[in-house]
């Protein structure tokens, strides 16, 4: 084996081990809430925001070509400190749902529900983007979470 090939292999293996270690650290050390696919969750057809407790919210999101139905289209407002459960599904094709500056990074899958919880400690605008190519209007598929 060529020595450069060996170095490339060693580098690749080291990176894989480092990423593996980081994943374990994120899950166990930081106790990060990892996005979850809920294979047996109840499906929903409309988006909404529900207050389920003191500063606790549930946001049902229905992604479609090309927007996010969250009760309102593409934008929701939440109070600072809100703990929010996001449930995402899709009405048509595969979409993505990523909220900038958070760990919410989900696939919107027709016929399935994905889930993530996040706490919005800081006020401001959090951009939502579809990060799964979903057709001609994909680049326009964006929204905001406004935390006041």
């Amino acid at each position: 084996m060529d020595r450069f090939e060996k170095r490339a292999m060693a580098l690749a293996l080291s990176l894989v081990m480092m990423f593996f270690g980081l994943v374990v650290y994120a899950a166990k050390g930081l106790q990060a809430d990892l996005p979850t696919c809920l294979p047996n969750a109840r499906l929903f057809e409309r988006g909404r925001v529900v207050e389920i407790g003191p500063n606790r919210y549930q946001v049902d999101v229905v992604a479609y070509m090309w927007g996010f139905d969250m009760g309102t289209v593409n934008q929701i407002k939440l109070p600072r400190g809100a703990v929010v459960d996001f449930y995402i599904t899709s009405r048509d094709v595969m979409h993505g749902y990523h909220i900038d500056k958070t760990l919410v990074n989900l696939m919107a899958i027709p016929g399935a529900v994905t889930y993530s919880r996040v706490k919005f400690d800081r006020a401001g605008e959090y951009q939502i983007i579809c990060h799964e190519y979903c057709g001609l209007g994909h680049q326009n598929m964006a929204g905001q979470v406004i935390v006041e």
Partner: protein
Amino acid sequence: MRALPLAGYLLSFALGCSAFGQGVPPNLAKTLGATPPDVKFIDTQGRAFKLSDLKGKPVILSPIYAGCPSACIVISRSVKKALSELNLDPETYTVLTFSFDPKEDLADMKGFQQKHQLNASNWRVAYVPDDDALFQLLDAIDFRFTYVSEIVKDHPNLLVFLDSEGVIRHYEFGLEFTPAQLQRGLRIARGQYTLWERVSDWIFPVGAVGMLATGAWLMLGARRKR
């Protein structure tokens, strides 16, 4: 023979689904070994008590909501039946059924207790009057429910076992709990682990270290041959 791996996969998938039911499953890595906050409950007799008042013996926590049309009824009835079959000394453990729905109160829990005859001397049916405290408790056991409608909330079907010091030691999942499940939970809550239960937590770290060591050994071996 070729179908064996597929059958194994399907079986494990089916077991996984049946174990968690609906809702978001708890992350046990976060909760096992932690102590829930000492929240105040009010039982169906109107008596206030704290979780710390139950220390001294294992506690079976059963989060339900009184308005539940299905799962919570099955859970409570099966726990009652399983405990009566086990015929344990009621002085050796406590069952605490409490509502996870912040909108429910004393009247709701009284109705649930009377309807399902949860009258054992060591079985307390209660609610948490302070909503913030309720959610702190739910966070501590990582119990997440999903609002479907005013009547229906999806939730994981589970029991949480606390040891005599109030530390979370074990979860059991399912709709119809069996005597074996409750016996296992109470045994673990008493600190009596089987050999498998003692070593199972170490399989992943030992496997990871083994994988890294094997990789390093192979790379060193390749370098020596050169």
